[in-house]
């Protein structure tokens, strides 16, 4: 499977076409094709995982900073032009004493490339590069996608575009899988854009309502804005790294200093802008909450587990570039961490004031993405990826739980239509609760381990500020999730529907995800650290990224913080002990509340100021130009043509040509008039002429002949 990882995206791609062509005629309306394909893809992904885990660790990569490693490496990959899977062998060189003095060999990535096209003497390849990160992503994506498919069969039942929904789901999964297995930045871009398109289709699934299509448009355009940067980054790196799109090569050359620093920074910044757009970081995060207009399974798949983490994945993949460009190893501060940190805090604050359950989860996602990006920014690579892995499960669980709740009460508004639902929907309640605790990060659930690793990494790598940020974020996360749980499941039921537990296709995915939320964290628990072992890769080691495993003190601190947050929220909402009506009485609190409600006025900034100014002034200027200049030129040409035609008519046609023609006519007439006088009609005159002429002729004859 490792050699044939391309099969997995192909499966879902074929499923897309099959659903499109045959889905409507099938009894399950295409869902069975989707589930079948995803199931198969999941199985193959598991096979890939097993194969990877079983793979012997043979590659020895020297640790350390980049200065030590150059020259001795075998740069030839033979990937271009051939169809052979190759293992890259590296000769061990000098060892750098770092945190890990021993050289543990790692599994080497499996690359398989095919020539895509050739421009001049540049050969662009397409292919797969499978390593631990890829395998983990494959597993996660196919599992979540499969569960979403199962969930959707019930949730989207009777929907007017049921078949297209499943087709779009398949296509989306194809895009994500393509991104995950790709070996070149160009191919990754392909998957990236495909996901953008599918997210547009899926968010705007119920496009009959204008707000849904607006949300889809907003998502698409915001990520597109980021994609400009992405494109700049990819192209810059292409040229700077010696005209190659190959990811492994780019990483290699970045770390060995073969790429000029300025080009590297430009490329990294460009790529990161794309990440900001796709992974909803500040300031391009505004699309994600609005994207909740799409169906809940879509939110679960796209916005919890797969698409939004594409940005994080990209950073993790091209980590060599970022590491070198932003000098992550040095500590202190760098753009990635800053952006991630800000995102964590502002999104968590916003999650507090939402009434819509999906919006709470959306902001929570933004905040958690901020965690992942921050983790990558502080050099905690494994922590970031691990958090991505665990987050997929519990956020997916939470979204699907919200879907289950809305399926019962037909609404997403917590304050107005929910409350006390734990009595009516026990399974949903329990799973949702598990997901919330996992998100908050309590021992021993998944979130605890991953979040803790981030904090440790931040601390140990010299980013104390971001450790603090992470802790504050944890507080806020626990608090708003408690609020959310309370408003939804506790208290008295405030709605008007008849809530009941959801049917099996909905609850089974919830249970599965709950199990994973509990157990997934243990993969990287101290002593096991299997996750770390699996995902350890060449770049990681070459760059000298340090992995810090679990430490007790930060764990204790974070647990205390989380418990305090839960208690705080409990008191605030459950017991109503703490001051109520604060916003009514206090102007500062009120303005702060208003700021949060208006999402920091960012939307107003984007739509009103930036777009408005462009629309208004530039559009008007363009219109003026069009009317006065372009139209003016066209009209002038037309007028000139007409005038010249007129002049030609008058002076040449009438005066010269017509005069000539008429003159010929008059001349003929006049001459004829003259000749006419000979014809008198009188015979004697004719006779006279006859005789006269004959006589003259005779004379002539006599004289000359």
């Amino acid at each position, binding site marked *: 499977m490792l050699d044939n990882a391309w099969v997995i995206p192909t499966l879902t791609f074929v499923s897309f076409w099959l659903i499109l062509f045959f889905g409507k005629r099938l009894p399950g309306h295409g869902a069975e094709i989707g589930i079948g394909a995803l199931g198969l893809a999941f199985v193959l992904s598991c096979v890939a995982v097993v194969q990877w885990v079983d793979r012997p660790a043979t590659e020895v990569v020297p640790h350390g900073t980049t200065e030590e490693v150059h020259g001795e490496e075998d740069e030839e990959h033979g990937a271009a032009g051939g169809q052979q899977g190759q293992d890259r062998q590296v000769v061990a060189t000098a060892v750098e004493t770092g945190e890990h003095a021993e050289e543990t060999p790692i599994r080497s990535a499996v690359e398989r490339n095919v020539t895509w096209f050739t421009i001049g003497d540049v050969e662009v390849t397409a292919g797969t590069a499978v390593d631990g990160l890829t395998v983990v992503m494959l597993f996660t994506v196919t599992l979540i996608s499969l569960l979403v498919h199962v969930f959707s069969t019930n949730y989207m039942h009777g929907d007017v575009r049921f078949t297209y929904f499943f087709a779009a789901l398949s296509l989306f999964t194809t895009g994500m899988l393509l991104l995950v297995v790709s070996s070149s930045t160009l191919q990754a871009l392909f998957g990236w854009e495909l996901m953008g398109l599918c997210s547009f289709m899926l968010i705007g699934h119920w496009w009959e309502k204008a707000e849904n299509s607006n949300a889809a448009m907003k998502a698409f355009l915001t990520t597109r804005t980021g994609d400009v940067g992405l494109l700049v980054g990819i192209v810059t790196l292409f040229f700077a790294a010696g005209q190659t799109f190959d990811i492994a090569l780019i990483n290699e050359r970045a770390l060995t200093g073969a790429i000029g620093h300025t080009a590297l920074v430009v490329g990294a910044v460009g790529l990161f802008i794309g990440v900001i757009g796709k992974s909803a970081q500040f300031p391009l995060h505004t699309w994600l909450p609005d994207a909740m207009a799409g169906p809940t399974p879509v939110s679960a798949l796209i916005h919890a587990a797969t698409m939004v983490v594409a940005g994080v994945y990209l950073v993790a993949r091209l980590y060599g570039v970022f590491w070198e460009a932003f000098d992550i190893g040095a500590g202190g501060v760098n753009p990635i961490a800053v952006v991630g940190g800000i995102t964590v805090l502002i999104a968590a604050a916003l999650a507090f004031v939402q009434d819509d359950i999906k919006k709470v989860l959306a902001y929570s996602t933004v905040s958690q993405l901020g965690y992942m990006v921050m983790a990558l920014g502080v050099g905690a690579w494994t922590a970031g990826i691990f958090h991505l892995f665990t987050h997929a499960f519990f956020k997916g669980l939470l979204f699907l739980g919200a879907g289950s709740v809305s399926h019962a009460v037909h609404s997403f508004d917590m304050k107005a239509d929910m409350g006390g639902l734990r009595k009516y929907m026990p399974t949903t309640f329990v799973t949702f609760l598990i997901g919330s605790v996992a998100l908050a990060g309590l021992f021993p659930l998944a979130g605890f381990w991953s979040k803790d690793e981030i904090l440790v990494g931040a601390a140990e790598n010299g980013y104390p500020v971001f450790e603090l940020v992470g802790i504050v974020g944890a507080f806020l996360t626990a608090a708003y999730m408690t609020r959310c749980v309370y408003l939804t499941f506790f208290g008295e039921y405030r709605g008007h529907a008849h809530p009941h537990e959801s049917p099996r296709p909905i609850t089974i995915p919830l249970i599965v995800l709950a199990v994973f939320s509990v157990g997934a964290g243990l993969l990287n628990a101290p002593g096991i650290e299997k996750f770390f072992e699996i995902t350890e890769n060449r770049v990681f080691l070459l760059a000298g990224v340090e992995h810090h495993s679990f430490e007790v003190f930060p764990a204790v601190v974070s647990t205390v913080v989380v418990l305090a947050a839960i208690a705080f929220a409990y008191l605030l909402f459950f017991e109503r002990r703490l001051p109520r009506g604060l916003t009514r009485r206090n102007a500062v609190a009120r303005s702060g509340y208003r700021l949060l409600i208006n999402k920091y006025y960012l939307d107003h900034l984007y739509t009103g100021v930036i777009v408005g100014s462009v629309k208004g002034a530039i559009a008007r200027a363009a219109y003026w130009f069009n009317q006065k200049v372009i139209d003016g030129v066209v009209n002038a040409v037309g007028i000139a043509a007409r005038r010249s035609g007129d002049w030609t008519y008058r002076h040449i046609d009438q005066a010269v040509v017509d005069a000539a023609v008429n003159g010929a006519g008059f001349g003929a007439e006049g001459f004829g008039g003259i000749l006419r006088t000979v*014809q008198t009609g*009188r015979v*004697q005159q004719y006779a006279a002429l006859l005789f006269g002429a004959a006589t003259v002729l005779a004379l002539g004859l006599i004289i000359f002949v």
Partner: protein
Amino acid sequence: MLVNQFLVLGAVLFSIGVYGVLARRNGVLVLMSIELILNAVNINLVALGALHDASGAVTGQVFALFVITIAAAEVGVGLAIVLLIYRNRASVDLDEVDLMKG
């Protein structure tokens, strides 16, 4: 006798006849002038015939005879036409017959 004297006489009569054809207004007078011309021709024929021997002379006379006959026929028809013209127009002035005027 010179043959020329007859021939020249014929030429004189011919010329006079031509003048008459061209200059006379009355249609009948034109016909008379045509008779003059025909007589001139006859003189020529006979004189030139007499220049030769017997058969030549006889030939000349015979042809002159034919000319006379034809002249008679022609006058008959010509006068009939003049009569018609007179009937249609109440005049035989040839200057008035200019229907073919361009």
